[in-house]
Structure formats: C-alpha cells, structure tokens
C-alpha cells in the first residue's frame, strides 16, 4: 500500500467523514488542540527555564519537573488525540503541506531531545539537582527544548495560515476526489 493510498484510506474513513461533516466537530477539536498546545508549551517552559537557571533556582530540578510534567503529559495526550482527529479531515493535503512537514520534524526533534536528556543528562541529576546552575549539556537541552516546542506551536499556527493547501503537488500524483 502506497503512502497516498494510506492517506486516502484515512481521509475516506468513518472518522475522517465524521470530522469533516459533523457540524461543530472541527471547530471544537481545533480549539481544544490550541488549548492543549498552549498548556504544553507553557509547562515545558517552566521546566526549561529551571534548567537554564532563570527561575526556581532554589528549588530542586527533579521537584519542579515532577510537579509540572504531569500537566505536560496530559496536554501532550490531548494534543496528539485532537491533532490526529484534525489530520483525518484532509490527510492528503496536510501531508504535503510544508508547515505540517516541518512541524512533524520539530516534534520528532523535541522527542529526540527529551530522550537524549533522560538517557544522558538526567541520569546524573543527583550531582546538580539542588544547584541553581545545571551543567552545560542540561542547559543546552533546555534551550533546544524551548526552541523546538516554540517551533511546534508556531508551525501549527502556520498550517492554519496556509490552509493546509500550500504545497507543491508531486509529479504524477492525482489528489482528486477519493471517495
């Protein structure tokens, strides 16, 4: 099954049709996605600025992250669910939209950055947990996290600006009606 056929199947699915044709479904899901994205970015920021020593410098890093990341994961789960629902409405157009592609890359980058932090930097957290200044590697992870999550939010907004249709159609690809 080609990528195009998979996307067409998603678009023609019952879920895709429900999202497209149910009055109010897309506005409610999209607005909920925005709330989750806003909360996700805001809570990630709280942890990242602790890593950078810009706030909470007298509070243990693990305490700040434990308190805050529960909200972050909740917001992330809601973002994934609502984002997936939005994707089903027009997967054939979203998939080839440059802003969507870059957002997916930024999300991947944020995931890799978080994994690298957990595997490499956080393993030695007891050595700097109470310090106001985290080691350079941790601070770099904080900067990367801030930039990547800000990019995710901004590129998400840019998908709206491009209406999901700002893309170059690959040669030989028919994006006509699929159902």
């Amino acid at each position, binding site marked *: 099954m080609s990528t195009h056929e998979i996307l067409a199947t998603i678009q023609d699915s019952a879920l895709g049709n429900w999202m497209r044709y149910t*009055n*109010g479904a*897309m*506005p*409610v899901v*999209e*607005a*909920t996605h*925005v*709330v989750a*994205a*806003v*909360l*996700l*970015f*805001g*809570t990630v*920021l*709280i942890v990242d600025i602790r890593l950078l020593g810009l*706030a*909470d410098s007298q509070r243990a890093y693990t305490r700040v992250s434990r*308190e805050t990341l529960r*909200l972050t994961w909740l917001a992330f789960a809601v973002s994934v669910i609502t984002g997936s629902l939005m994707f089903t409405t027009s997967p054939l157009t979203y998939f080839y939209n440059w802003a969507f592609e870059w957002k997916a890359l930024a999300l991947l980058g944020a995931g890799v950055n978080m994994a690298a932090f957990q595997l490499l930097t956080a393993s030695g957290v007891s050595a700097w947990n109470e310090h106001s200044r985290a080691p350079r590697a941790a601070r770099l992870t904080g900067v990367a996290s801030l930039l990547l999550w*800000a990019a995710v*939010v*901004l590129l998400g*907004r*840019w998908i709206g*600006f491009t209406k999901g249709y700002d893309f170059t159609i690959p040669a030989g690809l028919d994006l006509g009606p699929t159902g």
Partner: protein
Amino acid sequence: MRAFAEWLSTSAPSVAIQSRFWFIRVLQATHLITAGVAVASGLMISLRVLNFQRADQPFDAAWARFAPWLTASLAVMLLTGLAQTLGDPVREFTATSYWVKVVLVLCCIAGTLWFARAARRAPATTSFSVTAKLVAAALILFWLLLPLLGRMIAYDKAIWGPLSLRT
C-alpha cells in the same frame, strides 16, 4: 457596534495593519506563544491556592515565581490582542467568543489581583479559605477557556449558533 467596527476598519491604523500580511501573522504567533506563558503561570498560581502545586512553599514564594511571568506575558497578549482587534475589528466585534473572552480576561486579572493582595497581607500563608479555593477553581477554568475562545472566534456561527453576533 457593527457600524463602529466598520468605521474602525477603515481607519489609518487598521488599514496599516491589514496591509502588512506578515505583521498579522507575527501578531498571531506572538499572541499564541505568550498565551502559553500566561496560561501556565496563571494555572500554577491557582493550583497553588488549591494546594495541588508547590504545597510545601508559602504562597508568596509561588507568587514571586510566577507573577512576573504572568504580568509580562499578559501585557504582550493584551498588546498583540488589541493590535489584532484593530487589524480586523468587524471579525472580532461581531464574534460572541470575542466578548466572552474579553470578560474572562478581566475576571482572570481581577482574580489574580485578589490573590496578589492575599500574598501581600499574609505572605507566609500555606492554606486558603473555601472562597479563595472556589475563585482559584473558577480561574483555572477561565485560563483554559481563553485560548479555546480565541480559536473559536473563527468559527463563531458554528459554535454559538443563534447566540452568535455574526449575521
């Protein structure tokens, strides 16, 4: 209101914003990013009042941590929000979501100022009255509704139906 919005949309500042396509995008993007800072900071203050966050800290410590970020981000949000309103007054003024959002922003500011007074009067307090906790719970809902309503401005008729101010 519509006549005023239409007049405003022809004013020089409004036309200047409308004619700068990239400026509108930058305004919206900045508004969205600072909303993240404001909502998270506002939530943390309210969650502290409810003892769900930083219960080990006195309230004034949590206040000192989040209030400056909340104030700065709210200031940027208000500026970018006003500029967006000026850039498309008919769209904003004829949306029920917009007016509900304005009311909720004022409620969030008033509630947070009330907590600021509490931080000044009893800086070392760790627990709050039932009334304060009810206000905090309401503020959590309001903070989360702000970005929701902001996005819903685009879909006012679909969301509000006959209650929409758009005709």
